[in-house]
């Protein structure tokens, strides 16, 4: 299962994406500012509750990040080992372990955001965040990245199957990379030129109509919590 939006009726689902982004950023800020046993102990309940508020379990959220886990474990281990007496440096290991644990908390909260926020909401938030022409184009371009990712993935997978079927897997690594990437790149260039024709045909404009974003009471509440967290980071 890849980390993606899941429809649901959690508390976080009902919030405005901007409020959720503020919460997420504030949480990361506090976690980085207070990487102490006490600070992280206080933040842990928040991070564990976050996936529940997005109708998911913390375990499922952790499973999304299994690729990062070896790196998180390696940090304290490498910090602990030293190439001379005293061989094991416990203090450095403890600092690195706290840092690793902090990342786990930040990842949990980030997963809760992704679970509870449809991408078009995020896109609207991007447009709101970056005003004017940059925001308009960035909003559309981000949407295009979402649209073309699966298409190019299947182009590359097909190309790879084709190369393997012709015994490409027996070739040296450099050749394999080149053969697969050339196919992907040729398709991508082709798709880009057709896309630009299609955009022009549909009057791609600097000022399209944005989807409505409305701040309600609970969004202000969430923003208040975010501000409080951010303030806690400064203490």
């Amino acid at each position: 299962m890849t980390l993606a939006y899941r429809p649901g009726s959690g508390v976080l689902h009902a919030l405005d994406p901007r409020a959720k982004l503020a919460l997420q950023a504030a949480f990361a800020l506090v976690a980085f500012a207070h990487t102490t046993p006490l600070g992280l102990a206080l933040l842990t309940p928040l991070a564990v509750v976050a996936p529940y508020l997005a109708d998911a379990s913390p375990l499922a959220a952790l499973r999304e990040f299994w690729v990062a886990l070896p790196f998180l474990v390696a940090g304290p281990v490498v910090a602990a080992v030293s190439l001379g007496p005293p061989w094991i440096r416990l203090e450095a290991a403890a600092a690195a372990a706290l840092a690793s644990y902090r990342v786990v908390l930040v990842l949990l909260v980030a997963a809760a955001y992704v679970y509870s926020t449809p991408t078009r909401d995020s896109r609207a938030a991007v447009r709101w965040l970056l005003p004017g022409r940059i925001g308009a184009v960035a909003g559309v371009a981000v949407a295009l990245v979402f649209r073309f990712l699966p298409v190019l993935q299947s182009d590359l997978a097909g190309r790879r199957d084709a190369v393997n079927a012709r015994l490409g897997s027996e070739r040296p690594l450099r050749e394999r990379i080149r053969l697969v990437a050339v196919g992907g790149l040729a398709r991508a260039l082709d798709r880009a030129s057709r896309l630009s024709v299609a955009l022009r045909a549909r009057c791609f404009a600097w000022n399209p109509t944005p989807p409505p974003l409305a701040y309600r009471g609970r969004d202000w509440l969430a923003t208040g919590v975010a501000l409080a967290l951010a303030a806690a980071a400064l203490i």
Partner: protein
Amino acid sequence: MSVESDSVDLVGDEIVERVARAAVFAALAGAFAYVSFPNPVSPAPVTLQVLGVFLAGIYLGPVWGGLSLALYLAAGAVGAPVFAGGSAGLGALLGPYGGYLWSYPVAAALVGLVAHGTSSLAKPRDVSVPRLIAAMLAGTVVVYAGGTLGYAVVQNVGLYRAFLVAAVAFVPAEAFKIAAAVGITRTEDLGAA
């Protein structure tokens, strides 16, 4: 509720073309993150993400190559599964190897700058091989500097240790990607590009 009553302000043809290319290259870098090969000289498998960074610099130039990878980060931050292993969200950007991700736009811009200079874009096929290699080596240095620095800051370890854990295993694979990218620009089936 406010009502906008502006007239439609069309985006110019040239910009449309560039935005389309930037978006597709950002998606391509994301799709490359899913392609991995076993590495003959190191236990870490080779993924092609960095090749996407190189190609964006070479084919889009310094400005749009950099913007394209910035777009890649923005799309990943709001939830597109474009980062290594199909991860997404601000968590990946703040995680242990977020430093790599932050360095991509800078690296793509630098690759474009060294390969094309500040004047107009040359066809990638017409850029000399030494120049291409120099451009991609510079890009590689930026990517690994960013990755090491990011790991050191996030994991709270020294730079040397961060380099050992987060970078050393991946460096040898870059040679294959640089060689492959040079081969790509010299490939006949890319037609006009």
